[in-house]
Every structure is written in C-alpha cells, then in structure tokens.
C-alpha cells in the first residue's frame, strides 16, 4: 500500500514539475518598445480599431515612455482615419492643450483643423489655425497656416459664401516669398482673379426682368424654365380673369391664390438663379484650373497638400 501511495505521490510531483517547466518556457516579457512596435504594425496595416486598443495599452502600462506623446497622437490619427472626426478633433485638442512645443503639437493643429473641415465646420477649422497663428514664430509654419486658411476660404467660396475669394487672396498675399514659391501662390491668385472676373448675372436685374413672367429666367439663360414660367403664369392669369368675368369669383380666388405663388416664385427663382449662375461660374473655374486636396499619409502620419493645375 505504501509503495502505491509513494508512486502516486512521485507521479503528482512529476506532473507538477513538468507543467511548471512548460510554463517557464512560454513566459514572455513585453517591453515598451515591443508594445509600441506592435501597435504601429497594426496602424500600418490600417487596422485602426485594434491599433487604438494597443496604443491605449501602451499608454496604460508604460506611462513614463518617451513615445507617450506619439502614442496619443497616433490614437488621434487612427480616429481621424476611421472618419470619427469629432472624436479625432477632441483627441487632437488634448494634445494641443498639453502645450508641448514639439512637432506632434504642430501636426495636431493642422489635423484638428482638417477634422473640422471634414465635418463641414469651416468656422472651427479657421479658428484652430488662427489660434495657432498667434502662437507660432517661424516663417515656414506661418506660411503653411496662411495657405491652409486660404484653402478653407476657397472651399467656402465654392459654397457661395461672400468675401471668401477676397479673404483667400488676402491670406495668400501674407505669405513670405519662399512660402509663395513653395505653395505656388501666384497661380492661386491668378485663379482667384479669374473667378472674380467670371461672367456674372445681376440678381437685381434678374428680379426686375421677372416682372414679366419668365423674363428673369431668360436673363439667366434658363430658356426652358423661362418658357414654362411664361406659359404657366399667363395661363393662370387668363384663367383667373375669365373665372372672374364669368362671375365665378371663388374659383377666380383659388386660381389667383395659386398664381400668386407661381408669380412670386418666378421672381424668387430668377433672383436665386442669378446667384446660382454666379456660384456655378466660380465653382467651374475652381474645378477646371485647380483641384486642391489634403492628404494624410497613414504610414508617416504626415499631412500633405496636393494640387493639380490644368494648363
């Protein structure tokens, strides 16, 4: 009996020892460099969701690492690349508020502005850059800010915002000679000049022409609309007159009510068409000559502006 117990005891000890030695073989110590490299690998593979988790793990376990700022920035870039622009803007804001004077903070300003642009908030996009402009001294960064602000105003010009072209040209004119060369501002200024001098329709004249139904549309080169408006309005006016003449006053009232809508609609539409015509001219010039785009390089986490010019 005793020998049987001792066999069992030896067997248990052997099993325990073997398990322990196996566990020792599998043990792995993850250094900060390994963790950061893994998160970066995921970033390069564009697996941004997982990369965010790994960057957060890195921040949690290695809060004293020198790559901490970079990891926070990478999280924000991941959010940006995932098109979670509001979250990205918030994450870049934290980096900006930390107030460190380094390349990461500099990039964060531009990224945050771009995040606001992507959600269509050109106002905030401008404020971010204008605030940054107050903080920077070096000429190169200032030029980049001026160029980006000009780009924002050119985007606003495409939405029909008045004075946008003037503001864009003002910012371009503020750039240093070296910056002007780098960003080809002369071509942009030429483009703005062309857009300003594009053939225009006067909205007031369009409204006045619209007193004769369809006249405003005719002035705005909308010949089909002018014809339909003329037919519809004259038809309704004639019908109202006939109904009144036949002592059918209630029917005349209905027709007159409907006609009032179409007649005022004709005036409104004519003025609106003149504005739309002018906007379409601006957009077509901006589209034909230049296409400005900002790009993010996910591997280098860089911000890049590109433009095409049609000769």
């Amino acid at each position, binding site marked *: 009996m005793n020998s049987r117990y001792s066999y069992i005891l030896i067997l248990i000890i052997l099993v325990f020892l073997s398990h322990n030695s196996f566990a020792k073989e599998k043990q792995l110590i993850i250094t900060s460099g390994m963790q950061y490299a893994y998160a970066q690998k995921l970033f390069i593979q564009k697996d941004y969701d997982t990369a965010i988790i790994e960057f957060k793990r890195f921040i949690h376990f290695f809060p004293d690492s020198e790559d901490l700022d970079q990891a926070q920035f990478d999280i924000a870039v991941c959010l940006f690349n995932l098109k979670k622009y509001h979250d990205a803007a918030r994450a870049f804001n934290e980096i900006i508020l930390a107030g460190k004077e380094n390349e990461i903070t500099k990039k964060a300003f531009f990224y945050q502005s771009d995040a606001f642009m992507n959600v269509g908030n050109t106002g905030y996009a401008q404020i971010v850059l204008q605030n940054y402009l107050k903080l920077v001294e070096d000429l190169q960064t200032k030029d980049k800010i001026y160029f980006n602000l000009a780009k924002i105003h050119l985007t606003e010009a495409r*939405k029909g915002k008045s004075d946008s072209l003037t503001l864009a040209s003002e910012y371009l004119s503020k750039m240093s000679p070296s910056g002007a060369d780098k960003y080809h501002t002369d071509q942009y200024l030429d483009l703005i000049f062309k857009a300003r001098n594009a053939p225009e329709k006067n909205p007031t004249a369009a409204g006045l022409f619209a007193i004769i139904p369809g006249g405003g549309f005719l002035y705005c080169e909308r010949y089909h609309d002018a014809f339909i408006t003329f037919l519809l309005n004259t038809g309704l006016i004639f019908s109202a007159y006939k109904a009144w003449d036949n002592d059918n006053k209630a029917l005349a009232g209905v027709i007159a009510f409907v006609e009032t809508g179409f007649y*005022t609609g004709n005036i409104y539409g004519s003025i609106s068409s003149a504005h739309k015509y002018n906007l379409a001219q601006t957009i077509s010039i901006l589209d034909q000559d230049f296409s400005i785009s900002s790009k993010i390089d996910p591997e280098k986490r860089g911000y890049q502006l590109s433009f095409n010019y049609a000769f």
Partner: protein
Amino acid sequence: MLPRNKIIAIFVLLFVLCLCGISSAQDQNAVLRFYQKHISVVDGNRCAMYPSCSSYASRAFEKHGPIIGWIMSCDRLVRCGRDEANISRMVRVNDEEFIYDPVGANDFWWFEKEKNK
C-alpha cells in the same frame, strides 16, 4: 343648400389653411403629407430632382414658414428637371441619377447672411 360659390370658397379656405401649416405640430404640411402618402405612391416617383419636389416643399415650409415655403415650392415646381441640370451637380440615389437641388442651394444667398447677423 349652399350656393356653389360658397362651397368653392370653403374649399379655398381649407386649402389655404392646409398650406399655412395648421398641422405644424407634425413636421410636414397636411397637403404634402396627403400627397406623399396617397398620390405619390400610386403616381410613382417621377421627379428628376433630389430631394423630390414634395420633400423640398416640406423642408422649405419647415425651414422658412408658410409664405417663403410656398413661394420656394412654386419656384421649384417650375424649375423641376430642365435647366437646373446645367448648373447643379448630379447625385446617385438607389441606382438612379438625380439633379441635386436641396433647399440650401436656393436660399444660400440670403439665409446664411440672416443667420450670421
């Protein structure tokens, strides 16, 4: 018996009240809602613009109230699908191409200024 003129006048009054958004508690105007629910379904979506004229009218009433909404809706009905294609961009919705003409594309020249004041 009511005279014919009075019956028509009552209809006119009802029509005007409907257009003026007596059902403002709900988002859409009663006439537009009736059109979209009962007529457009049978008639089919033949509007060349996006949003459709009835959706545009609904949005215009909601954004600018009954008077401007009514004027903008009449303007849109006249412009629907012809010369607008020359200056507005196209959008693809459910594999069909439409001329993109939202309310914002027709009030940008005065509404943004009003808003910024």
